[in-house]
């Protein structure tokens, strides 16, 4: 099959890549761009370990073709914070023990990032519903929920202080 040229803007950087139409976004991110934060967990769009932000939406990149994403703006966990400037969510996940093996964490934080953009003051119930597309096998979610609520609170306090 003829390869197709796609343009992906990932974490602010634009890449032109030749891909087979069947290549899945997750593998292009992981293997061509070496962004190994998002993971492959189930391959049938159930676990959410592959979650990235695509044009302002959380998507499961194991079920998106790179060709479908042609022209898109993508944010992965690697683009959410930097080592010297962590995102509040990254800090709160550590503070509240919101992770254990770390495999679901990139997808979980990336999803929580979009959730808080859309709803900056979620209730516990809204957080649980909002991350229900991301499975975690280690934490039982309780501390993940706590981490996200704490991040929301901090982000709002920072916003208030800035105003």
């Amino acid at each position, binding site marked *: 099959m003829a390869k197709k040229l796609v343009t992906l803007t990932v974490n602010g950087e634009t890449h032109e890549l030749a891909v087979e139409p069947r290549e899945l976004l997750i593998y292009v991110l992981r293997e061509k761009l070496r962004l190994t934060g998002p993971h492959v967990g189930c391959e049938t769009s159930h676990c959410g370990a592959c979650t990235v932000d695509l044009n302002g939406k959380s998507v499961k990149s194991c079920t998106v073709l790179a060709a479908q994403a042609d022209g898109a703006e993508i944010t992965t*966990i690697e683009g959410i914070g930097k080592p010297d400037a962590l995102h509040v969510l990254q800090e709160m996940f550590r503070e509240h023990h919101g992770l254990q093996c770390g495999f679901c964490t*990139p997808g979980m934080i990336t999803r929580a990032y979009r959730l808080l953009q859309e709803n900056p003051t979620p209730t516990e119930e809204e957080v649980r519903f909002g991350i229900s597309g991301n499975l975690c096998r280690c*934490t039982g979610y309780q501390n993940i929920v706590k981490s996200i609520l704490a991040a929301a609170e901090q982000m709002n306090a920072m916003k208030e202080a800035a105003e």
Partner: protein
Amino acid sequence: MKDLDEREERRSALKGLGCSRKRVEDVRFTQGKGHYVDDISMPGMLHGDFVRSPYAHARVVSIDASKALALPGVVAVLTAKDLEPLSLHWMPTLAGDKQMVLADGKVLFQGQEVAFVVAKDRYIAADAVELVEVEYEELPVLVDPFEALQSDVVLREDIKDAKEGAHGPRKHHNHIFTWEEGNAEATEQAIGAAEVVAEEMIYYHRTHPCPLEPCGTVASMDKVNGKLTIWGTFQAPHVVRTVASLLSGIEEHNIRVVSPDIGGGFGNKVGVYPGYVCAIVASIVTGVPVKWIEDRMENLMATAFARDYWMKGRIAATKEGKITALDVHVTADHGAFDACADPTKFPAGFFHIVTGSYDIPVAHVAVDGVYTNKAPGGVAYRCSFRVTEAAYCIERMIEVLAIELGMDAAELRRINFIKKEQFPYQSALGWEYDSGDYHTAWDKALKAVDYEGLRKEQAERVEAFKRGETRKLLGIGLTHFTEIVGAGPVKNCDILGMGMFDSCEIRIHPTGSAIARLGTISQGQGHATTFAQILASEIGLSADSITIEEGDTDTAPYGLGTYGSRSTPVAGAATAMAGRKIRAKAQMIAAYLLEVHDDDLEWDVDRFVVKGAPERFKTMKDIAYAAYNQAIPGLEPGLEAVSYYDPPNMTYPFGAYICVMEVDVDTGEWEVRQFYALDDCGTRINPMVIEGQVHGGVTEALAIAMGQEIAYDEMGNCKTGTLMDFYLPTAWETPNYTTDFTETPSPHHPIGAKGVGESPNVGGVPAFSNAVHDAFRAFGLRQSHMPHDHWRIWKIAQSLGLHQ
């Protein structure tokens, strides 16, 4: 007072035992910088993929790989014929059996590995799998272990006539072993003479650990210097190295096994799978790295399952409820090969912990292992070897006995608990329980949930239901479990002949920081955080100045790995013991520096102080520097230590769990209203990490009890191969938990710690299951098998006539 404050300040600066230190691992994980096996990419790396059997039992008539080989980019297609000259078409299992690496003449379960395609990339490999033509001749399928023991159909033709297996005599061609413990005669007598006997079949269904990261490996044979490096999802990297050496003939020093970050294990990553062997062979043959990563369906259908125990229990008691005897017979479905992960001596693991928390004078267990046309395995899924099966069995039998006696199940437990003063307690099935205080834990738990109030509410609910005012019932699920972890004394426990000790090696650097390497491997437990805490308290250097490294067999000391909650009891003890060796040498150095006798010094948090002269001291930092910079007569330079720890006994964590559940009689839907978990894991190293382990373990228990199963149809087709059907609850279905603790240290462990990772699974499953049963107790339910998914709960209600 000032001195005390100052000392406390120094102590808390260490971030040692008992502190909720934030995890050092999280810094990289939260930034997407974990390093898992599928993240490895090497120049020229090839990709492997399997052709798998669509049938559960069939003869392989022919395999034609010509079309696949003609596809550009395909390097090789391996079949059993290619592996046979290397004697690698079969491999030994952890249970003394052997298992096909690639189908040798027949297949014995759906999803079994038939051929291994090696190609330039994962896309071509997947295409080539489709092009391999395999002709099968279907054979009769056996999915029921009871039927398998009667059937003329021979599953394992390779050992058809073998009268002896790895664990003694075989009774039938589909029988694997019979294993017994306890006094059959005395138990039979006690049951015969008992005032009350309760009998029940308790089934603990087949399920799967299903870590979020599937299994995989990258094998790289460097033909220039003869070194083989294997990265992979290994819970026991050193054992993998030894096995790889024995199988390949490559000397062990030329093999390096590395477990990078592991995305959850829960027992699934203890065993050696055909994918590892094929990738290694392919790399040895091609001389380039070969990667094999399974997908989720392969993980669920072909890698190690857990449980599948049919447990026939008989429990005898006096009319007052004092238990007099217990007998359990288990029919254990092991699937196509006996690939159970248990110590060699114990083909049913530690199932004989089945007397639980109770003082039972006589008992007997017998386990029959059986072959069927299902995937092999039988790993401990977040429990020590077969302990969750045992705990479930006794905690269900207690409930059934309570029904038989018309007694409150909490009270029945209380009058049968082993008493605090009976420890160390010798159980009727041969274990020596190290320590416990069950009554205190039980009373604390009942009080915390207002047990009496709950029972009152339940009784009112039953009345309201009978009056037609509600369609929801209330269940109160009780559990008091006793775990047995920390395998184990080398005299009793080995894996493939390797004694189950563990190890720690410490190097103190001149400037007062350190690296410690262990034989275990974290899969989310946070070893890099907690082992540094153990060490900080032992050697007086801050945990923040201690690096913990695991998983690389070239650098780490030999150990048996992480599973069965053995890391803290065994490697944690090795860490403390190695730390004490460091301290012993440090004391001699300090004595030299302070010009006093060794005995004139005492240890004070982070320093040696001259007795009676507190202003004269040397901190561990001072001592570390001196160890490398001073010529001390009679002492070697440097400050290092290694400890290989063979525990004198197992540890016996315990706990009291109570689940309050609402059950909808019409739809079978359920809701956990409250879940209280009290754990006693001895000395608590990091309360935050303990709480996290409990949350996660109880959630896995929720999944197992309420929906998760590996199910087959009568043709042996696996019906639960994706996460649509294999139940993993989301944040939405998962409740909040309340955690609590008592602290009864282990008397034989250097720091008194017992291990906790698996307690919540062992205690959680019966708590959820008992809640479901308890909701229907007033209407006559005795026993209903897990998983308690909607339709099975509905079926209970229907069978009790609650739908009229």
